[in-house]
């Protein structure tokens, strides 16, 4: 009981410290408002505003129809270029796609000679290249069919395929972008904030002051984890409510309580990592480097940029140790798929486990690190 009273009072002190630092407060507010908003709205669709050019050597009704069918938002209005310009313009990245319509294209189509349309694709943008290619192919085939049949009627196939997107029926990219951004921000801010809280006390010498009082390392570390976790939890909830749900209009299918509960567990794990880094770094420069080395994998390999199952086999076991990976799948399940606790309990357990490991490791190193820091 006394332990928790101490933690409570130390925690209050911790909160006061953070709020007295204006730069930190501003950066936290920015991270949970503008940063989320711009990230969510920037990454709309995978193929969006793609630059495209047409080499029209046919100058027919059909070739113009194809050109007209490529329009925003997927593609920019196509530019007409000459065949000689293709290489140079693609080299300089003026166009991501170039569609070449050969001479006598319309004529050949009409006579059933199966003329070929060449599509040059800049394959250095991998995702956009493959999706854009399939869009262009569909558009060309549709236009050609339309031209031949002189109607909107499409060919009747023996079997039709109906594709349905579960959880995000319209495929609004912003939903995923917003959640992804929010998750990355809380990972990053929590780690920096808690690590910095420890380093700041060390710089000011107040940590020694705490250590000579009848307080255990557990109380000191726990108060930092709890206080900084609480700040981020509040920031997260507000950001979720105001930015994500209200401004960006992202629906949350699952239980908000469950979401907040799981987030709390994740924040414990992330804060423990922050403290852990704070205990192994001797100087601020070392902490900064360590932090980058941890934050980049934590945010990039959590499954937000690349789904876990697509990661190479060698990397997958490594990412298993990143709490962010489990939190990402937890959050997606609750927010988009409306999962309940019976479905996502394994993630919660793993996060608790990983958090405890980092927490105990920092406890073990705590006193030693203070001693060495002189």
């Amino acid at each position, binding site marked *: 009981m006394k332990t928790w009273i101490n933690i409570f009072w130390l925690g209050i002190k911790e909160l006061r410290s953070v709020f007295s630092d204006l730069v930190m407060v501003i950066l936290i507010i920015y991270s949970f408002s503008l940063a989320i908003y711009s990230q969510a709205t*920037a990454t709309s669709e995978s193929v969006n505003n793609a630059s495209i050019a047409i080499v029209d050597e046919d100058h027919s009704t059909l070739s113009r129809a194809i050109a007209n069918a490529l329009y925003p938002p997927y593609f920019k209005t196509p530019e007409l270029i000459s065949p000689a310009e293709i290489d140079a313009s693609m080299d300089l990245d003026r166009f991501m796609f170039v569609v070449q319509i050969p001479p006598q294209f319309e004529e050949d189509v009409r006579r059933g000679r199966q003329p070929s349309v060449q599509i040059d694709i800049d394959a250095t943008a991998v995702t956009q290249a493959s999706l854009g290619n399939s869009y262009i192919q569909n558009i060309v085939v549709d236009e050609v069919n339309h031209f031949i049949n002189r109607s909107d009627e499409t060919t009747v*196939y023996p079997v039709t395929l109906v*594709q349905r997107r579960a959880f995000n029926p319209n495929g609004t990219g912003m939903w995923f972008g917003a959640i992804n951004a929010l998750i990355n921000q809380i990972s990053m801010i929590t780690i920096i904030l808690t690590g910095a809280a420890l380093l700041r006390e060390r710089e000011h010498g107040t940590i*020694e002051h705490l250590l000579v009082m009848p307080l255990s390392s557990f109380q000191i570390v726990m108060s930092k984890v709890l206080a900084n976790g609480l700040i981020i939890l509040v920031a997260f909830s507000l950001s979720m409510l105001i930015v994500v749900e209200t401004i960006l209009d992202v629906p949350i299918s699952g239980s908000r309580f469950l979401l907040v509960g799981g987030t709390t567990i994740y924040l414990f794990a992330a804060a423990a990592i922050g403290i852990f880094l704070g205990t192994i770094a001797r100087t601020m*420069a070392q902490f900064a480097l360590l932090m980058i080395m941890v934050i980049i994998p934590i945010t990039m*390999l959590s499954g937000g940029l690349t789904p876990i199952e697509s990661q190479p086999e060698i990397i997958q076991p*490594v990412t298993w140790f990143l709490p962010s990976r489990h939190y990402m799948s937890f959050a997606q399940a609750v927010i988009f798929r409306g999962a309940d606790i019976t479905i996502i309990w394994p993630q919660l357990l793993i996060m608790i486990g990983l958090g405890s490991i980092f927490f105990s490791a920092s406890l073990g190193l705590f006193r030693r690190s203070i*001693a060495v820091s002189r």
Partner: protein
Amino acid sequence: MAEQDRPIARIQGVTHSYKKVHAVDDITLDIPSGLMVGLLGPDGVGKSTLMGLISGARKLQKGHLEVLGGDMTSVDHRKTVGPGIAYMPQGLGKNLYAELSVEENLDFFGKLFGQSTSERKTRIERLTKATGLHPFLSRPAGKLSGGMKQKLGLCCSLIHDPDLLILDEPTTGVDPLSRRQFWALIATIRKERPNMSVLVSTAYMDEAEGFDWLVAMDAGQVLDTGTPESLKEKTGAEDLEAAFVRLLPESKRGDMSELVIPPLEEKGGEPAIVAKNLTRRFGDFTAVDNVSFEIQAGEIFGFLGSNGCGKTTTMKMLTGLLPVSEGEAYLFGHSVNADDLETRKRVGFMTQAFSLYGELSVEQNLKLHARLFHLTPEKTAERINTLVERFSLREHLGVLASSLPLGIRQRLSLAVAVIHEPEMLILDEPTSGVDPIARDGFWELLVELSRKDKVTIFISTHFMNEALRCDRISLMHAGRVLVYDEPKHLVEAKGAASLEEAFIGYLEDAIGDKSDEANNDSAIPATSLAETAVGLSDVELPQSSETKKQGFSLNRLLAYSYREIMEVMRDPVRMAFAFLGSSLLLIVIAYGISLDVEDLTYAALDNDKTPESREYLSNFEGSRYFSEQPALTSKEELERRLKSNDITLAIEIPPGFGRDLKKGETPSVSAWIDGANTTRAGTIAGYVSGAHIHYLTQLATNAGVDASAVSKVTLEPRYRYNPSFETIYSMGPKTPAMLLLLFPAILMAVSMAREKEIGTITNFYVTPTSRFEFLLGKQLPYIAIGIVNFIILTLLVVFLLDVPLKGSLLGLSLGALFYIFAATSFGLLISTVTKSQVAAVFATAILSIMPTINFSGLVQPTSTMEGGGHLIGLLWPATYYMHLSVAAFTKGLSFSELMGDILLLAVFGPILVIIAATFLKKQEA
């Protein structure tokens, strides 16, 4: 010598405020030249501020200030006279670079003043010989004792023959022997350069006796000026200390009664503190060497010695903060144990640095500690009430601790340390930097605690008059206890007139004992000063080149670079992190980020179970894109497994599929795609359509129709640059862009912020360094680190990731150079606007990670983004470098084709440096 042609500094109506506090309040004063002028007064009366203003390190806020015959608000004048002024800020070795050796420090300062190599060599030799630092030329400044640090500081100040030497409390925290040597040194130098004016501030009144002219200050104002004699005469006091007190306004004098210490009652019994052969080593440095002593309960035990002699380390070992290397320590008969919470409740501790929470008010600080010691609410209220009365803190209750004057802070620290009524107090230099009156007040409290409450007090100090008040003291030097006994016995034993002389005697004995050891810090034989004094004038020195050029100096710029390189080299861990870290991240990220959507988990809900339905499903089996999971049996299961992320795709075949197909009734198959990750969902949709079309073609072929003949047009997609369509050809070149930005930027920001925090930035303020020399000079080493990193990463990309560099290496390298320059400039910019290292790291990370990962085209090309993100991407250098890198590696473009990106990248660095330069002030506020 009192009459000089014109004052060295003319101060008229100068006021300087920090927020609302006037540190210097409307001072008008002429400081005569050619003299040794002392600024007297307790801490926080504005001495340091005034000195900062005169040196030009601080920016004048209000009033008029002329130094060396010109207006200090004029940039031109400051540039002209700057080299004539030397300023040594308060704090031991504050403007020295701890990692650099004595010689490197001196060399750096020489370079800043544009001295040639040979000139520097002569000067360094001369100065170090004169000060006795010569044997320690290669020792890092951080490992010097306090006295030696101050000597080195003095050498650094004297390297350019200044006309005005400003020393801010140069002897605070220095042992008496070193202090004596320091003043002797100054005297020698003045003899040799009689025209040099010296402006000194000091807290030791006895030192001030030897000055030519004094300025007594209090509360930002000048009380009186004159020679020591005239001041004593005016006040009718015997010594300066008394004279100063009499100059103070009535209300501040405190009660003038002499502090009486009742004799200690011998209680016998168990000693409160026992140290047996305590030793503590840091690496190969022995901070505390075989220290033993016993402290009786109720005793006031003083620990006397200079800064860095091991007092603090010993105290930390006794409190369990530091593990002991060897030996034993007992408190109340218990062996010291870091986990022993019970013993800690009986001890109060006050560390050297002010260690309360500045962001909490006085009352909040007291309450926090009462709560942490679990006093009951009633007890808390009672204790706080008592302490507030006893320590006169009532009027400050609501004030933030950080805004209290030092003397009151120390009272608060003591109040906090005794809030739980401890039986023992361990106080590490509690009165350092506190004025004499406040010190007396503080001691009254200590005496009361000791004699009335029977508290054992273990206190360290470097003030002799405080040591005299202790029941027993121990003299410490270079990690060893020289002797411990009652003060009067020590004086008697040495046959000395005062404790100070006795201490000097013991120090000289100790030094004599081991004068041949290189470890010996202040080992200057008394004669060496006189000898080298002759040497000082012997050497014919080239005229200092200081007046020649005040414009941009490449040498000065390189001096900063060289110094930074030395510092970086001394922290190999940091370098290892930077190089290994980025290599490791490159591998993890480039491999880990795969945009090829593969192995999608899917399951089928076959409601038909006919050969036809199985044929349809066989399309998905065995594809590298799909990985089949156990079949679904119901719609509910389908939903549940999608929800739990067990599958990302479900194919639902309706009942009667086979029958309808045969009848030509166009059955409809449903594909349920997990739409949470929209990008992935889009890709899956494409794959599913592909599989579906494949099935239709097969169906047609089986029916004897040539499917290929049916289509009206053939489409020939050509995947340029990356025909095999592998993510690595895109991520391989792009990942270094991320690492080459983040690492240099953050290293740069920390290095700069550290300079601000430690105080070495003062050297930039007071030397003729221009902003661009400073900014670019500090940047060069980090650019070099970035370039090495670029080479390592490029080799890794080519040989480990197997991504060939098809285009121009020259173009890529040039772009990388500009890009790294932009990155370090960004770090500089951040650190010029933040105050602490923590804030610099926080800001750099938060402001750079997001744009680099999300808006620079790492996964999604910037051109396809919208809104704010698009704009940020356009303004962020990583965008152009990623573009350039992909173009050089994968597209194989030539130098001229890469020119566009290179030129854009070249723009960022200079712009950022210019912005940073406008934020970086040449003077402190």
